[in-house]
């Protein structure tokens, strides 16, 4: 299959050639498959002869109601949402000039979902009338944040996607924090983002239909100026196109479309991405064609996904459709990333190498700071009658939690350094590259594969998951170091989709699983903490022994080999160290802590760049951040407690975004 360039719409077609037959064939196949499943399902639900009586409301039996007020509106909402997302994705991609953009990858959808969740908690009355306004505000805020941050990097694909997906993850952590702060059940933690298409009436159809019609109409009006824009800003200006205004208007339109979908059914990720790219890859040449076919493919893809989800053998029909689209979308994102030209994905140069004259003094200061933190976290704390020094008995209760945070934070930070050195990418870390997710996925799979298991099996599963993910990442990085970042993001998305799939299965043990995934140190025993510390010592001393390799590897594969390094063996050893660190740390503080990302960056921004100092400094900084997060979690809302992993994600997410914005 020969395909055209996916990134930018081709010039306004000179010849109005009909689109290649492959596109109608694809649409037809998707449509037929969905139609077949749908017709079969509906016919089982209600005999065809009774359909009209049910729809006109003559028949009010249970099945007739289910048919007319649930099944049929769901079908139509499915089409409307799919089409809206397809249009929105084409608009985003056209204006941002990257085929990787859509509502989900830009953080727009999760911004809207977080705003809705926050409104539900703090100002429920807002939702009675202004639900869409709330969603729109959240989506707009998210997109402004992403664009502002990506602007520094010249709106490159990598920076857009990286900020977008980070904003998504951050919104997820904030949503989880909302749930915990309000003493709600933890179930929402991972499933809160997954949109469900279940309908119980026609309200959503009535809301979405006019919005899609209006949005599509506006999009068609914008086709000509947008095509002019594809010629380049200068040419477009010469043709009288107000370039900035046009960009703003198109982004606003796409955001509005995506936000109204979130407001109606929750986050349905990746459908727009898939639809827009399929349309372009299979022959939609002009923007007009892309808009039309993408909306059609979006509707059909979501319809087919939803039909599959509703088959009784798929988790008893309990799987939210949003989880299913993420499950299908993550590998797609991975494929698209692999197809990208390496040049599109070049990361910015690593931040300038400052003087390291004061590195020794800085390390000393970090060490002293960590010692103070640990002492404070252990001794100082809140009790029923205010802040006070702890007596020995309380100290003993705190000790395992502080030690576990210390060890986990330190080794996760070192894992971050190792990965940055190995991949040559300044933004690499176990969290961003999905290694933490891989470790967590290993545990989740173990949970559902075995009814009961010894505690050591959990470590083994986490280790296997982390190692497998790392291996995939290193394979990817052989192609182009910069791809792995996006690949890792796809893996992280895949993990949260898998987790929500498994949580939707209704297993009662999910409560334990959720408590663990939120990153709580509550259940850590002294023995667990000792293991964690031992692993940290092993990883850190191992990394210090491998310092020469780290220095050489950052010269690049060829450079390192030229200087006599057996790069293959060095990579395997470093990979094992990273996997060990990530697995043990993830078991202790959950997969969402961001410490492996934050700590190395903090240290780098202090001007520490040489391997020895970087490893030592990151370990100190990471341990300090995690101990601080655990301390805040234990004391902020005393006697209620916040999971340490979540607290550090809430500190680390914004910090990471800020660092991302500061690059260049």
């Amino acid at each position, binding site marked *: 299959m020969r395909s055209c360039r996916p990134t930018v719409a081709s010039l306004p077609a000179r010849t109005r050639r009909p689109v290649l037959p492959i596109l109608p064939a694809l649409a037809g196949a998707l449509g037929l498959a969905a139609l077949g499943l749908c017709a079969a399902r509906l016919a089982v639900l209600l005999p065809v002869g009774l359909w009209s009586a049910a729809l006109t409301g003559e028949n009010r039996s249970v099945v007739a109601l289910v048919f007319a007020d649930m099944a049929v509106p769901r079908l139509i909402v499915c089409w409307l949402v799919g089409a809206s997302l397809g249009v929105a994705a084409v608009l985003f991609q056209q204006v941002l000039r990257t085929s990787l953009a859509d509502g989900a990858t830009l953080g727009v959808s999760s911004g809207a979902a977080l705003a809705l969740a926050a409104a539900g908690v703090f100002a429920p009355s807002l939702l009675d009338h202004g639900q869409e306004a709330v969603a729109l505000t959240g989506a707009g805020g998210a997109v402004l944040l992403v664009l502002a941050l990506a602007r520094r990097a010249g709106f490159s694909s990598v920076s857009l996607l990286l900020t977008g997906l980070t904003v998504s993850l951050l919104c997820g952590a904030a949503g989880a924090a909302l749930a915990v702060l309000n003493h709600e059940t933890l179930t929402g933690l991972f499933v809160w983002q997954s949109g469900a298409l279940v309908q119980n009436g026609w*309200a959503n159809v009535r809301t979405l239909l006019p919005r899609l019609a209006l949005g599509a109409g506006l999009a068609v009006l914008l086709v000509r100026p947008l095509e002019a824009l594809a010629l380049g800003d200068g040419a477009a200006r010469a043709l009288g196109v107000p370039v900035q205004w046009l960009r703003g208007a198109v982004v606003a339109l796409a955001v509005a479309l995506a936000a109204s979908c979130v407001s109606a059914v929750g986050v349905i990720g990746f459908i727009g991405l898939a639809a827009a790219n399929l349309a372009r890859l299979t022959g939609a040449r002009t923007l007009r064609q892309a808009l039309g076919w993408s909306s059609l493919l979006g509707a059909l893809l979501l319809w087919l996904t939803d039909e599959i989800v509703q088959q009784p053998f798929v988790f008893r029909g309990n799987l939210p459709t949003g989880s299913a689209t993420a499950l299908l979308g993550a590998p797609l994102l991975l494929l698209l990333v692999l197809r990208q030209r390496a040049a599109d994905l070049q990361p910015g140069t690593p931040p300038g190498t400052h003087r390291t004259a004061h590195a020794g003094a800085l390390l000393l200061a970090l060490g002293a700071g960590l010692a103070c933190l640990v002492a404070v976290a252990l001794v100082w704390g809140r*009790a029923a009658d205010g802040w006070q020094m702890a007596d020995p008995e309380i100290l003993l*209760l705190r000790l395992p939690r502080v030690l576990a945070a210390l060890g986990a934070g330190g080794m996760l930070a070192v894992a971050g350094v190792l990965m940055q050195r190995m991949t040559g990418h300044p933004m690499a870390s176990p969290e961003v590259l999905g290694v933490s997710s891989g470790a967590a996925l290993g545990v989740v799979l173990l949970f559902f594969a075995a009814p009961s298991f010894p505690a050591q099996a959990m470590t083994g599963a986490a280790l296997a998951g982390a190692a497998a993910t790392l291996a995939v990442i290193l394979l990817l990085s052989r192609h182009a170091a910069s791809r792995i970042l996006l690949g890792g993001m796809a893996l992280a998305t895949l993990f949260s989709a898998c987790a929500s799939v498994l949580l939707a299965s209704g297993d009662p043990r999910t409560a334990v699983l959720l408590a663990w995934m939120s990153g709580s140190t509550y259940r850590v025993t002294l023995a667990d903490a000792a293991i964690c510390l031992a692993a940290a010592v092993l990883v850190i001393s191992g990394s210090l022994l491998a310092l020469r390799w780290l220095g050489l590897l950052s010269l690049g594969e060829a450079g390192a080999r030229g200087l006599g390094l057996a790069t293959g063996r060095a990579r395997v050893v470093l990979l094992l160290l990273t996997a060990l660190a990530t697995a043990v740390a993830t078991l202790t503080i959950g997969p969402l802590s961001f410490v492996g990302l934050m700590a190395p960056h903090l240290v780098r921004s202090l001007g520490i760049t040489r391997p020895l100092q970087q490893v030592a400094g990151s370990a100190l900084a990471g341990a300090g951040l995690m101990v601080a997060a655990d301390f805040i979690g234990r004391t902020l809302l005393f006697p209620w407690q916040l999971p340490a992993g979540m607290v550090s994600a809430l500190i680390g997410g914004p910090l990471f975004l800020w660092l991302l914005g500061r690059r260049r």
Partner: protein
Amino acid sequence: MRGGGHGLSRRSCLTALLSAALCPLPASAQAAPRIAAADWAGAESLLALGIAPLAVSDTGTYRDWLPEIPLPDGVPDLGSRAEPNMEQLAALRPELILISNWQANLKGLLGALGPTETISIIVPRTDPLENARTALTRLGARLGREREAAAYLAAFDAALDGFARTMARQAEPHPVYVGVLHENGTQVFLYGPGSWVQTVMDRLGLRNALDRPTSAFGNALVDLAQFAATPEATLLYLDQGARTRRAERLLSRSTLWQALPMVQAGRVRAIPPFYALGGVPSVWRCVRLLSDALMPPDRG
């Protein structure tokens, strides 16, 4: 609309007052036992025996859900029921820590702070009301409060009989659903066999409209459309605050919900919340709430 069943409320108030008046006397005579409760089933059982708990998890929600057996002011909060604050608990030096059977995974951790006792109410294939009674009796025996336990159970039985007699005077009661609206606005958790709500309904002579198997916790998740199968039924849903508001908002926009016969006939009502995993005092509250909700308004 509500405010029916005044006589009965008065009687239940009296018995509650009586038991409360009887019990604190011996409690103040000796040093009060220092017993903490990681779940409300333990807390309310202690209070029923006239013992103020040393500390209780999530005291805020307890006060909302169990106003009949009020926690004395100033009982320390232990935070989340899933992760009771160990530091707070240790500082209080408990002589005994009560946990519920669903918290069994906390036994090891909390056991380091003092002896624990597990209260089992909801256990598959057993009668949960009988479990709740046994739990109260056993706790009374352990704490030397056999008399108080027996008195409380006797008062409860008398109250239950009273409610049942009044309900029986009603002609042909409608079948009833009792449950919690799911936040997704498309499903409802309904109580059935395995929960003591079912036992209470049986004793009150009510017919549970739920006719499907329930989970290990005695409830079932049911789609809205299923309610169309029993047009004559009444739905009583627990008002759990923000969560219930969210569900109501979604339902108010649902054409399917609005078209249900029981919604159109106004036979869907919010009732104050009760703790369905609780002990005898929670059962007592449930009895009163169901009776109040289903009694014709002119009676009493």
